[in-house]
């Protein structure tokens, strides 16, 4: 169990990046969903022991690791949002170096271990190439490989699927699902689909605060039966809808504006029909600061 107790982070300014975040994360996949600048990466870096919190505690399996980050590093697999590698090393050498730094070993030996990990992230073909020649997606997969190496108790992946094509994303989902069976995996993302596919529970974080701690099904149930979808052709009508309604989505479909709204009380407006609520709808509703709590059931 990973416990976060009242974590706060204030930067000079002052800027409150985290305003008292408290969470309990059991074994399994846990999502952290929020927009850019919500504080997800700050929270992840604090948990990973790379950033000192202003206040609060991080407790892993009953042990307070806040002031002794080295205690968490031996049990951590971490894939940050932004990272790089030594450009002159090959992928194989870079991964091996990381495995050595993490104290990872295997009965088959390091060479086979490195090859096996690279194969699992589909980088076996590029093992002998220098990292500086890797594409962005390949670097992401190399990062994944080092994050899942060893036998970490806690895995933190921050925006892991950025730069991955759908096949790679699917491979990644399978790897994480396998890992989450026996360990704590925190997936921090702003891609709702990742959470809906992988996570049994997730937290929504906005402006440094947790605004919801919920499962995908519970999130959908909050707004079930109150999501309506319609088409708005007129730009001024669209403006009016955006201004007066709780819009969860507004996209162009075949050249026409398709809008989904959350309408808790009055029923479907003209031109709109009820549709099944998605996790994305729930996310947008939860992210809006202006929806009264009593409206959400």
């Amino acid at each position, binding site marked *: 169990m990973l416990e976060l107790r009242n974590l706060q982070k204030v930067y000079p300014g002052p800027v409150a990046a985290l305003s008292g975040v408290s969470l309990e994360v059991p074994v399994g996949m846990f999502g952290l969903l929020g927009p850019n600048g919500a504080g997800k990466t700050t929270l992840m870096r604090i948990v990973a022991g790379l950033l000192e919190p202003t206040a609060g505690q991080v407790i892993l399996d009953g042990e307070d690791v806040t002031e002794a980050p*080295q205690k968490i590093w031996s049990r951590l697999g971490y894939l940050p949002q*932004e990272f790089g590698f030594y450009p002159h090393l090959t992928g194989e050498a870079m991964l091996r170096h990381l495995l050595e730094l993490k104290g*990872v070993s295997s009965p088959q030996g390091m060479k086979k271990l490195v090859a096996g990990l690279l194969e699992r992230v589909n980088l076996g*073909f590029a093992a002998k190439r220098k990292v500086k*020649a890797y594409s962005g997606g*390949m670097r992401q997969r190399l990062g994944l490989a080092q994050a899942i190496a060893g*036998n970490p108790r806690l895995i933190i992946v921050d925006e892991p699927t950025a730069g991955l094509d759908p096949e790679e994303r699917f491979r990644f989902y399978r790897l994480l699902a*396998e890992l989450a069976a026996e360990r704590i995996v925190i997936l921090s993302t702003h891609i709702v689909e990742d959470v809906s596919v992988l996570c049994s529970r997730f937290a929504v974080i906005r402006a440094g605060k947790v605004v919801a701690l919920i499962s995908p099904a519970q999130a959908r149930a909050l707004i079930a039966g109150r999501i309506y979808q319609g088409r708005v052709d007129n730009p001024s009508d669209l403006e009016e809808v955006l201004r007066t309604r709780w819009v969860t989505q507004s996209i162009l479909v075949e050249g026409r504006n398709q809008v989904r709204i959350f309408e808790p009380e009055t029923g479907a407006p003209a031109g709109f029909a009820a549709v099944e609520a998605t996790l994305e709808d729930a996310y947008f509703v939860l992210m809006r600061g202006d929806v009264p709590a009593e409206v959400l059931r």
Partner: protein
Amino acid sequence: MSLRRLSLVARADLAFHLRRPLTWILVVIVVLSVWMLASGFLRIQSGDSAVGGTKAWITSEFAVAQVTCFLVALLYSFFVAVAAGMAVIQDDERKVGEILHATPLTAWEYVFGKVAGILVCFLAVLVIHQLAAGIANHLLPNDKADEIRGPFSIAAYVIPTLAFGVPPILFLTFTTFAVGLRFRKPILVFVIPVAFLLGCAFFLWDWSPTWLSPKWNRVLMAIEPFGFRWLNETHLKVDRGVEFYNKASIPFDALFVWSRAAIVAIGAAALAAATRHFARTMRGTAGAKRARGIVAPPAAAPVLTRPLRDLAMRSGVPALLTGARDVARVELRELRNAPGLYLFVPLILLQTIGANWTDLGPFGTLLLATPGTLAVRMMNTLTLLVCLLLLFYTAESHQRERSTGFASIYDATPVRTGSILLGKSVANAVLAVVILVACFLGCVVVMLFQGKVPIRIGPFALVWGLLLFPTFLFWAGFVLAAASIARNRYATYGIGLIALIATGWVQAKGKMNWVFNWNLWSATTWTDMGPFELSRRALVMNRLFAVTAAVFFIAVAARFYGRREADPIRIVHAFRPRALWRTALSLAPWALVPTVLASALGVQVGRGYQSKAMEKKAHDYWKQNLATWKDAPQPEIVDVVLDLKLDPEKSSFHSKGTFRLSNHNDRPLKRFALTGSPFWSDVTWTLDGAECKPENRTGLYAFVPPAPIAPGDAVTVGFEFDGSVPKGTNKNGGGLEEFILPAGVVLTSFSSTFVPIVGYDETWGIEEDKNRYEPRVYPDDFYEGRTEAAFGSGSAFTARVTISGPEAYRYNSVGILESDKVENGTRTVVWSTDRKVRFFNVVAGKWAVKQGDGTAVYYNPSHTYNIDDMALALQGARTYYAQWFQPYPWKELKLSQFPGLATYAQGFPTNITFSESIGFLTREETTGNAAFSITAHEAAHQWWGNMVLPGKGPGGNLISEGMSHFSTILLIDQVKGLSPRIEFCKRIEERYGEFRQVDSEKAMVKIDGSKPGDTTVTYDKMGWVMWMLLQQMGRDEILRGLHDFQTAYGENPDHPVLQDLVAFLRPYAADPVAYDAFVKQWFFEVAVPEYALDKGAKAKDGAAWTATATVTNKGAATMPLVLAAVKGERFDDKGVATKDYADARETITLAKGETKTVTIRCSFEPERIVVDPDAVVLQLNRKNALVKL
């Protein structure tokens, strides 16, 4: 090109550079430097150092130019390199390139804009620098202000800024920016200032051997980027007089102007080339090479893979050493890829070979390089280079994870922080090892070229392994700690550079001591006869301190190493007393050992012979005794009996003996004084056999005999004491004039080291800036009547010296060897004088001996290189000086070698002593006579200095030193031949030209050794003038005169000075009128000719040729001058006359400022006209006195 966009970039970069701490660190350092230099620490070497004499101003254009050169080279170069060279690299790291270059901004606008911003910033710093200099020079309180400040002139600051400040800053900005832009590797950027610093400070600024042709000298002046070589060689080296330097504007010549323009142009060209390349590649290179870098994925890869659990992975925490090994491995790979190493290695190779091949020793002779001397000689260069490299590599290594973006993964791994630091340090240590290996290879090359000295690794391992490596450990630890605390590469550079500059400043001011000399700069002296015996304990403690301090710094680095970004609010809390105390306590155990060592070392220094306590004792001696005893009449020694027991292992001795003192004054002596030494203990005295307790006046013992000593009567003073030489440790390394060490012993009666000296010691307790008084001004006729002796005992005395010590040593003193016995491991020798002497010495060593006919050379068995030449000189001296001057009155003439802890040679009667670096380790040039000439000079002192002891007063010491140089010329001419004699004369003439001080040089009869330029007049000019006098008088005549002079003054209580000599020789001159004119010009005036030739031409005249040229005497003396139209080279490399040479001669006489046209008829086609081909006229700038036809 859009000026608007360019100026946008320039403004942005200027704002950045003006905000960054590194810029302001430079401003602070520069301002502090000019403030400290305003004290007059760095001045043009000209002027009269006497009280009231005209001094060189610190406010003159020349002075400001000199300071500007040094500060730009030493300070600006690194800061400019970092700012300019890293500008584009920094943008890469910030990843702004993608966005910037997706705008209409062109490569040229980008580059020129950034360069403009950097230039404005550093030129602004230069302006602040000169403003600060102006304020400091003219307004800061300064007790020497009246002497060293001239009137304010804005030109004095503007012109040096434009000439010596702006061009190198432009050049450095352009080149380092170009390197950073083209290669994007920080370490390459740092190569440039390091290469320039090494090349200039250790080579270009002061390497100017006599054989360097004017053409190549001008080439070197042109390529030196800071302009100092040009300034020095053209204007400073040959003293033009303080009036010139104080008031004249620097006369720039075409070479300087064009070379500055060329240097800037080269920098601009490099920048343009780099910018062109950048423009081509910044939006992707068209070409296969780049394309090959893209890795194509396979056509299809399986989505479903085997389960992870099949890999059976386990994780743990790597052990300290395992982690360090892994880190080091990767760091070394990065180092291998860094091109800087491949540039520094040839740089250090060239530096090693160049510096050591041309290293000059005493008397301007080239030195043989032995393994130990090379290892020590290279320490300063290696220290500077490796410390700079370690600064840059450590900072970059510390930064590497952040700059590559790897830090967020790296810092979250369980590898220990200690492993990271250790691994990186080990990798950087390999860098130091590579540099040392390169330097060692350079040293091997030097020794192979020499072909004389066997190559041994031992001294290198000892010096570089035990002495140098702790320096690197200390420095690397310090930089690591700085990087960990600062967490910013530029702040780390700033801290490192400040530390280096501060250390250098303290060294330059002479305030360094063992406790703080972490880099052992110039602190070690090598002797092949026993390394590091002099300061061994202090050296060991200093090195232990360096190593333990390194451990402390690493502990600090580990404590502050930032794997986790600190919370700003918690940082504030960390400065609370409790938190600070906790931090201090956690680091205290690591600081304990270095603190104890530093304290113990400080105590050692505080108790040593160069401590403040010793300085106070010396001062008290001076204060208490000067007025009473300085001119008090004293008795003279007539007999010495001494029993000296030596213990070289303990540097101690026991001295017991008697002085028979006779009153040679015309009045009774009621009291007399003997000066002892603070290094004595358990001192007891007797007077005529009875115990005596003289008054101890801080080391001067005042005796009051029961009855006054009547004129002609004598008393016997007995003394017995223990002593140590040296006593304790010195302040900061270096050498020592007299010592008792396992490597050897050298003691002289000139000081009260092992025997008292009679009377007051005028040299003790004198401090340069505090109480050094100017010498007495003698009336012109001071020498008439009896003149007392300049040194030693006025009257000669007999001496019997018994020396005992370990059997392995031989012990030499003056006189003849009466007995030499060995018993129970102790050797006891007795030396007694076969003819009276005026001073004596004791020297001991584990020697081999080369015997001659009445001569012997005692030398270290490994120093056989020049023994034959030295023995030849000794034998020649004994033979020919005896013929020319006086028969040699003693039985044997010995020459004994002592360890090179002091670099002097002394001609004691029958027992000449030479430092190992004089003669024994002189490297022979191909026209070789270096070892020979030094030996000939010292041997001549048997006649000039012993048999004739010069008088006290102006012109006295020239009888000793100048006549010895003249004797050397004669002996080289006699034994070696014409070419070596010409070379020797030219060499000492060059030395005179280089070291004379135009403003303070007095006539030779007035030379009293008090001015810096007096030494070259005493030795070189006097030797030359006597050589010219020989030409003038005739050889037989002058030698007859000198022979009779020796007879007249040999046993004379009236000791001669120069006036006596010239008066004595006059009757021997065939033409007294000409003699008088010569003597007046050369002995009583200061006048030296300087010849310039111009308009050289040749024409065929029937079967013959005529060569013409105009000759001008730019100097002051009038001399008959031979001009020769020559063809071919007169002598080959070995000094043998060549067959192709021919010359035809004419003689003219030119007065001061006079010009004449000379025509010389030749039977051959001449190539050039030279002056004075036989080197018989002393002149300035001889190298320039020729014209090609």
